[in-house]
C-alpha cells in the first residue's frame, strides 16, 4: 500500500492524462503477479467496503484520542476521510508499512466481521500501526473514492502500457468480466482473449450525445428514432432462471422490482438486455418521482406494487443465448430483440426527413416521454462510449431565475468552498425553496460566490455545515422536469437542476414567481396527471 500511495500521489500531482498513465504503468510494471492483482483490485474500487462513517470515526477517536468535535472540524476542512485519518494518525502511528497482501487480509477481515465494535477495534489497531500514506490510501480504497483524478479508463490504459498489450484489448476484457485483477494477470501473460463474459456483472452502457438541433442531419434515412424514456436506465441479465437488474451507476436494483424479475424468469438465457425501468399505468409512464419511491425500498409491499406498477422496456440486446451480440449491427440486434416477443419493446422508426424529428419529438412528449434517441444505421453497441452513433433529442424546460437562500460546503476538491446551493422562487415578498444544485459554475466563480455568501450569512445549522444567506444572489437554472414535492417549501421539485449562469444583472425582485411555476407545471404535466 505504501508504494501504491507513492504512485497515487504522483498521479495526483499532474493534470496530464499521459503522465498519470505513465506513473501508474511504471508502478504496475514493477509488481509481482500477486501484488499486481491486488493493486488492480484496490485501484479499480473493488475493495469498497460497507464501513460506515461512524465506525471509522470511532476508530479514529480511539486511535488518536482526539475528541469528536475536533475530528469533525478536521474532516470538514479536509473533505476526505482517508486524508483526514492520515493527518491525524501521523503523529501517533508506529509507521509500519502495509504490504498489499496485508491490506487484502484487513479487507477480508473487515468484510466478514459482523460486530461493529470488532470492526472499530481492528481499524483502531490499523490506524495505530501503519504509515500515514498507507492509511490514506487504505481508507480511500475502503470508501471507494480515490479523488486523485484517476478514471477506470486510465487504469486500463496504464495496465496496457505496463504489459505491452493494446489498450482496446484490455478495455474489452475488463468490460467482459469486470474484474481488473483477473484482466491484469491475463494481460501480463498475453491471454486477454481468454477472458470470458461474467454473467451478472454489468457491462458498460452505450451513451448518447446531445443532438445539436441547429444542424441538419446529413442523411436522415441513415437514422432510426426511438422515444427517450424518463425512467431508470437498466441492464437486465437472465441465466438459469435468475434475473438481475443493474443501473448505470452499476448498482444492483433487482430487489426493488420483483414483478420485473417474475416477468423475465422464464426467458431462455443467458440473456443481457439494455432498456429502461418505468413506472407505468394505463398505457402511460408515471412521473419519475413515483418511480423513485420504488427504488428506495429493499422490500416492496403489494400495496406499493399496485400503486406504482413498474415494467422493463427493452431497447437493445447485448447477449443472446450466451453469445455476445454487441459487436453486431443494430439491425441484427433489433431482429433478435423482436424475435424474443417481449411484452415491452421500444418502438423504432426509420427517419424519412429532418422535419420528421419535430413530429416524432412532439409525439414522444405527448406519450409522456422525454424526447427522442436517434440511432445510426449499421452501428454497433459501443459499450462505455458516448459516441456520435446515438444522439439524444432533449429540450430543457424553460430556465428559471432563482435566488440563493442557503449554501453548504462541497466535498473533495470543493471542500473549502460553498459549492452546493439551495435556491428559491418568489411568492409575493416570501422566498420559497424549489431546489438545490451542485454544478454549473466555474471554480473561479465558486470562489467568488463563496466570499459573497460568507459575507451574507444570516445563520448556520447542521454543525455550521449549512449556512442560511440573505436572498441576494440570482442564478439562472435549467432543469429536465417539474414535479410536485413536499421536500421544498414551494411544493415543487426540479429534475436535474443545474446552474446555467450567474445573473449578476438581476436582483431578488426580478426572479421567477411561484405562480409562474404553477403555470409551467400545468403546461407540461398534461401528459402525466400526478
Amino acid at each position: 500500500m505504501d508504494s501504491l500511495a507513492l504512485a497515487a500521489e504522483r498521479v495526483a500531482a499532474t493534470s496530464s492524462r499521459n503522465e498519470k498513465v505513465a506513473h501508474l504503468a511504471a508502478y504496475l510494471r514493477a509488481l509481482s503477479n500477486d501484488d499486481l492483482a491486488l493493486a488492480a483490485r484496490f485501484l479499480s474500487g473493488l475493495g469498497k467496503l460497507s464501513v460506515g462513517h461512524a465506525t471509522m470515526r470511532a476508530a479514529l477517536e480511539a486511535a488518536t484520542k482526539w475528541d469528536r468535535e475536533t475530528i469533525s472540524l478536521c474532516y470538514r476542512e479536509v473533505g476526505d476521510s482517508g486524508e483526514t485519518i492520515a493527518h491525524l494518525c501521523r503523529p501517533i502511528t508506529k509507521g509500519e508499512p502495509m504490504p498489499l497482501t496485508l491490506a487484502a487480509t484487513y479487507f477480508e477481515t473487515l468484510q466478514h466481521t459482523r460486530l461493529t465494535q470488532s470492526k472499530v477495534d481492528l481499524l483502531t489497531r490499523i490506524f495505530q500501526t501503519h504509515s500515514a500514506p498507507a492509511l490514506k490510501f487504505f481508507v480511500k480504497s475502503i470508501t471507494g473514492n480515490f479523488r486523485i483524478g484517476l478514471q477506470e479508463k486510465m487504469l486500463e490504459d496504464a495496465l496496457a502500457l505496463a504489459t505491452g498489450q493494446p489498450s482496446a484489448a484490455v478495455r474489452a476484457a475488463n468490460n467482459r468480466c469486470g474484474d481488473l485483477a483477473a484482466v491484469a494477470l491475463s494481460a501480463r501473460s498475453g491471454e486477454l482473449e481468454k477472458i470470458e463474459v461474467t454473467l451478472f456483472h454489468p457491462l458498460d452502457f452505450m451513451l448518447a450525445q446531445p443532438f445539436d438541433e441547429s444542424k441538419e442531419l446529413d442523411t436522415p434515412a441513415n437514422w432510426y428514432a426511438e422515444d427517450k424514456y424518463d425512467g431508470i436506465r437498466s441492464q437486465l441479465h437472465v441465466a438459469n432462471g435468475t434475473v438481475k437488474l443493474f443501473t448505470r451507476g452499476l448498482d444492483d436494483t433487482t430487489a426493488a422490482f420483483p414483478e420485473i424479475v417474475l416477468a423475465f424468469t422464464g426467458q431462455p438465457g443467458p440473456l443481457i438486455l439494455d432498456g429502461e425501468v418505468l413506472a407505468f399505468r394505463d398505457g402511460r409512464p408515471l412521473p419519475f418521482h413515483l418511480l423513485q419511491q420504488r427504488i428506495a425500498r429493499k422490500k416492496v409491499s403489494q400495496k406499493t406494487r399496485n400503486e406504482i406498477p413498474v415494467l422493463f422496456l427493452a431497447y437493445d440486446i447485448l447477449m443472446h443465448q450466451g453469445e455476445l451480440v454487441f459487436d453486431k449491427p443494430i439491425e441484427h440486434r433489433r431482429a433478435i430483440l423482436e424475435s424474443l416477443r417481449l411484452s415491452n419493446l421500444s418502438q423504432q422508426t426509420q427517419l424519412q426527413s429532418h422535419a420528421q424529428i419535430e413530429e416524432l419529438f412532439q409525439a414522444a412528449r405527448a406519450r409522456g416521454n422525454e424526447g427522442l434517441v436517434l440511432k445510426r444505421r449499421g452501428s454497433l453497441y459501443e459499450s462505455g462510449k458516448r459516441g456520435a452513433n446515438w444522439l439524444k433529442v432533449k429540450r430543457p424546460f424553460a430556465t428559471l431565475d432563482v435566488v440563493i437562500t442557503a449554501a453548504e460546503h462541497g466535498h473533495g476538491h470543493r471542500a473549502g468552498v460553498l459549492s452546493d446551493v439551495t435556491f428559491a422562487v418568489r411568492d409575493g415578498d416570501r422566498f420559497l425553496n424549489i431546489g438545490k444544485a451542485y454544478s454549473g459554475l466555474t471554480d473561479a466563480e465558486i470562489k467568488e460566490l463563496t466570499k459573497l455568501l460568507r459575507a451574507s450569512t444570516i445563520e448556520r445549522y447542521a454543525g455550521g455545515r449549512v449556512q442560511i444567506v440573505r436572498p441576494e444572489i440570482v442564478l439562472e437554472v435549467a432543469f429536465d422536469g417539474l414535479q410536485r414535492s413536499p421536500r421544498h417549501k414551494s411544493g415543487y421539485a426540479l429534475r436535474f437542476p443545474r446552474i446555467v449562469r450567474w445573473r449578476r444583472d438581476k436582483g431578488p425582485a426580478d426572479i421567477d414567481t411561484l405562480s409562474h411555476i404553477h403555470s409551467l407545471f400545468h403546461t407540461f404535466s398534461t401528459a402525466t396527471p400526478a
Partner: protein
Amino acid sequence: MQVEYSPDGIYLPAIGLWLDPRATVPAAWLSHAHSDHARGLHQTVIASAITAQLYRHRWPLPAGRQQQTLLLNPNQSIEWNGATLTARQASHILGAAQLLVEHQGERLVYTGDIKRRAPICGWPTEPTPCDHLIIESTFGLPIYQFLEAGIAQTRIANFALECLAAGQTPVFQGYGLGRGQEIAHTLALHQIPCQIHHSIAALIPYFEAEGYTFPVHSGGGAILVTPGLEEKIPLPPTKRKVALVSGWAALDNARARANADVLIPYSDHADFSELLQLIAESAPSQIDIVHGYAAPFARILRDRGYNARQAAA
C-alpha cells in the same frame, strides 16, 4: 494586564500602546511588515529596524507628514509609559519580532505571526516565558503539519529541476513579501535561473542587505509570481507545472483551490505541533488566541489544562 480587542486592533490601555492596529492610532507596535499588521500612518511606531524599513517601503510617508519611529531590535529594551518593552526574535518573515511587555511585575508576550521552526530567510524564534501570551492560530488544527525549512528547500529545488529536465516551466506561487523571496533565494542556492514578478522583486534589495543571494534575472528557468497570476502565464498547461509552497498545501484540496499540481507544505506560520511547543515554552497562565481557528484551538488548549480563550480581535 488588561488587553482590549476590537475591530481596530489589540490595545493595552494601561500603557497606551496598540499592537499591529488596523486603524490609525497614536502609538503602535508593528510585529512585522505584512500589510495586515503594519499599516496606516500612526504618530509613533515601534518596530525592529528591518520591519521599519519594509513598512516604510510599502507605506511611504506623504510629504509634510511627520512620524516618530522608535527602533527596537531583538533583545533591546525601552521604557514606555511605566512598562519595559523588549523585542524578541520571531521566526516568520525577515525582521519579525515578538514584543515582551513587563509591567507591574507581569510579563505579557505578543507573538505577532510566528512559527517555531527556523525560517529560510530571517532569524529563529526566541522562546520567551511569560504570564500572559497573545498568540495566533492560523493553523491551529492537528491536520496541519509542515516541513522543516531544509526539506522544503530540497523539494522546491527538485520540483524545479524535474520540470526543467522534462522540458516544462516550473511555476511557483509566492506572496510579495516573505515566501516569494524565500523561494527565489532557494532557487539561487541551486543555481536555477528564475523570472520574478516585480511585486516580489521590488523587496529583494532588503533581503540582499541581510546577506541573502538571489537568482540572476534571465529568460528561461523558473517563474515566480504572486498567487492567482499563474493563470495569466502565456504557456499551455502541458508546458508548465505549478507548485504551491504554503501551509495550505498540507491539504490535497489546496490543489484545486490554488490551481497547483505539486504541494509543498511549508509556511511562515506555526503548524499545530509548533503552536503547542511555543505555548509549552512560554508556560503562560493566560492565553489569548487572536487569529485563525481561534475558538476550536482555545478549546483544545483548555482540554489540555491551559487557561485559554478566543480573543475577538
